[in-house]
């Protein structure tokens, strides 16, 4: 019995705790740094808890650096993108589960294949296209890119959820005199709410974290999204480390909150034939 206990300690708890220390340490360290004054951050010895916790770093990041603007910009871009993504994904998911049509296989293959197109490769041609449309520097360009890059994964995910809504219910509604559209709005959508929320959460994390295109398209600090704000703080001469750590904590809030909701769907969601990292 004692032998067995020891095996469990070595095979389960030691590796589990080691990996969790590795995972949680960077987050702990950012929180720790964000509550320290600049003197304490840069001084010796290094402190593992702030001597006198201060919140001025958060005020600095939020008000002076501009995370108040970045946060609103990110929310705006992400939410508008997610609305488009969800609507288009429902349409695609519905078409793929309720109809047989020519080219369906090709379209499914397309949804899978385009997920492998590296964003870096498309920076220049998309920049040129948006430039001729006078959209460079606007949030609209970012929204269009976000919607497109999140769509393939979200469509496949949504298809899985719509498959779970029994066709019989819709047919029953149509026999009762509903049109197909009414069937969708009154029968399918209400049953699809958990799926919609899950797809929206995946999409929102993706949009919130988008970096490369925002870096390429946005040049006015008033338009920056959160990742660009973070990146710009890093590159600045004479980095304000306390404020940067606070910025990181602010940037974390939305993804972590969404993750807390999503984590029970993660295992099934990510294995639903989708390939998102």
């Amino acid at each position, binding site marked *: 019995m004692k032998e067995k206990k020891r095996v469990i300690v070595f095979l389960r708890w030691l590796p589990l705790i080691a990996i969790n220390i590795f995972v949680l340490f960077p987050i702990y360290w950012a929180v720790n740094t964000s509550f320290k004054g600049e003197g304490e951050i840069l001084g010796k010895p*290094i402190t593992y808890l702030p001597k006198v916790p201060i919140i001025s770093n958060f005020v600095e990041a939020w008000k002076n650096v501009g995370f108040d603007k970045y946060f609103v910009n990110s929310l705006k871009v992400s939410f508008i993108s997610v609305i488009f993504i969800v609507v288009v994904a429902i349409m695609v998911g519905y078409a793929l589960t309720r109809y047989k049509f020519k080219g369906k296989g090709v379209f499914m293959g397309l949804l899978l294949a385009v997920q492998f*197109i590296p964003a*870096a490769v498309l920076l*220049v041609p998309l920049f040129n296209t948006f430039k001729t449309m006078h959209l460079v520097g606007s949030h609209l360009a970012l929204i269009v890119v976000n919607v497109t890059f999140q769509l393939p994964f979200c469509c496949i995910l949504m298809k899985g959820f719509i498959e779970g809504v029994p066709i019989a219910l819709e047919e029953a509604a149509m026999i009762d005199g509903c049109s197909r559209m009414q069937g969708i709005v009154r029968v399918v959508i209400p049953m699809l709410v958990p799926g919609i929320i899950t797809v929206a959460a995946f999409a929102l994390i993706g949009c919130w974290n988008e970096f490369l295109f925002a870096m*390429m398209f946005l040049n006015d600090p008033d338009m920056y999204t959160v990742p660009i704000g*973070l990146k710009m703080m890093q590159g600045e001469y004479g980095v304000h*480390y306390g404020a940067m750590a606070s910025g990181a904590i602010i940037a974390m809030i939305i993804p972590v909150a969404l*993750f807390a909701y999503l*984590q029970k769907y993660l295992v099934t969601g990510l294995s639903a034939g989708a390939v998102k990292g």
Partner: protein
Amino acid sequence: MQKKQKTVLTPYLLILPAVLFIGCVMIYPLCKVFYLAFQNYNPTMPFLNGFCGIDNFVKILTTGEFYSALLVSLKWVVSEVGLQLVFGMIVALILNQSFRGRGFFRAMTFVPWAMSGVLTAVLFSLIFNENFGVLNDILRKLGIIKENVAWLANSKTVLGSVVVAELWRGIPFFAISLLAAMQGLSQDIYEAAKVDGCTRFQTFRKITLPLLKNTIVLTTLLRTIWEFNSVDLIYSLTGGGPVGKTTTLSMLIANQALTTNNYGYGSAISVISFFILAIVAVIYIKASGFGKESDE
């Protein structure tokens, strides 16, 4: 008649917006990359713009920059995918057992999945900093190093440091995928193994690993492509430096786009990396015999 035509058209109308988005924002610009690869295209020197044959490719293949980036890409992808697979497997094996606190630990371990590359870069820049970074402090206290190390500025340590940061963000993907596959395995075969007196290690070697083969092949392939293409974290943490030690092919492409103006040249590098990736994927799928034993 009217009604029949309508039902035939509906699915196409439903997928139309998705096709338009993907066509205009992914496929069309992708084709343009292939076109630009054979052009001189430099907005600051427009008088030189125009068709230039394979000049861009010749230039790439005769300068050292490309080969150096290819080597960094190789090191980057192999170490990332290898380490993420090993650690992801360990996490999945542990979380596949039932014990108190499993849900809590699952949530904790998977949390970096939601973090962006830039955010990860900020977290680790606070740790790796030469003067006040906590890593140097811990290693000095443990007596492992005597002098502070500039983890991100030293050409010997920089790649390893960036690999660790990306590993932090990458373990959950493997852990989640492998865990999902493990939960789909039938319990009977494990019962039988137990009755036959298999050790834990034997069970893993002879049962779990073969059953997970397709999942492992698929996830490593997806991850190889994903890591090959990934830019965010390296761009924010090192910008590809020092002296190109962390400039992967994708970083080279992104830097061409974001900082220099040599778009034709950048596009030609993109085209070459496409072919490299495609060849790697085909060889990998063939060599691993993916999907041959089961009809997935």
